[in-house]
């Protein structure tokens, strides 16, 4: 590819939005969530290790304590955004037919919101003990 034979049409170049219609924003946020993901993943692994073999009552108490709950919430939200972008990138690489692309992008959003919200809800319930 060279300057005179661009892969994208002129209108696509002007809009500079790429196949996901959203430009380089996702590229940047994938980096932001990666950087945040490193300490949060270490935190998650430490928390899980500390909970191994404990009774349900102890697990509920520890997961609902402020610092642990906040780390868990940060991990879940950060990971949800990261995996949403990541799966979108995979879909855009392999699914080219417009209908299936749209449907799988939609399924990706549903999955991430479902799993993310369920996890956040669980932590909040453990924290506030309703």
């Amino acid at each position, binding site marked *: 590819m060279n300057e005179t034979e661009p892969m994208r049409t002129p209108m696509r170049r002007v809009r500079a939005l790429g196949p996901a219609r959203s430009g380089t924003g996702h590229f940047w946020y994938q980096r932001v969530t990666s950087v945040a993901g*490193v300490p949060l993943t270490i935190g998650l692994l430490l928390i899980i290790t500390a909970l191994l073999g404990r009774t349900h009552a102890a697990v509920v108490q520890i997961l609902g304590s402020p610092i642990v709950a906040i780390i868990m919430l940060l991990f879940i939200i950060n990971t949800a955004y990261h995996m949403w972008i990541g799966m979108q990138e995979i879909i855009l690489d392999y699914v080219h037919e417009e209908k299936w692309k749209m449907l799988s992008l939609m399924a990706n959003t549903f*999955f991430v919101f479902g799993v993310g919200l369920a996890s956040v809800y669980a932590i909040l319930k453990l924290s506030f003990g309703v």
Partner: protein
Amino acid sequence: MADIETGTTRGAARPRPISPHLQIYKPMLTMVMSIVHRITGAALYFGMLLLAWWLLSAATGPNAYANVEWFMGSLIGQLVLFGYTWALLHHMLGGIRHLIWDTLHGFEPAERELLTLATLIGSITLTLILWVVGYLVMGGPR
């Protein structure tokens, strides 16, 4: 492959150039690790279901939690969790490698190989350490 000659004719139906895909390249460590990074990412994507299930069971009550503990303690559960641990650590270290590359460092042939090998050895080592700690020090899941 697209017909390159017709690509020069002016008109509406001008075919776009097509680049060769993965199958013509010899597999190299950096390339395989790049693919593994994506595969572990996709696996972790669905693995988040496990985390959600575990958290929801803890929030639901002792019986639900006991079911999850039973599954996680079973042979299949342990294998899944072991794979999950490795995938998570490998994806994390691979991510750090990519962040280093984002700063335009580590692109020399020897550096590339070293970083990629460090990702693999690091993830396996950390996984084993974590599981030994999990079993010996904490008593392991009951």
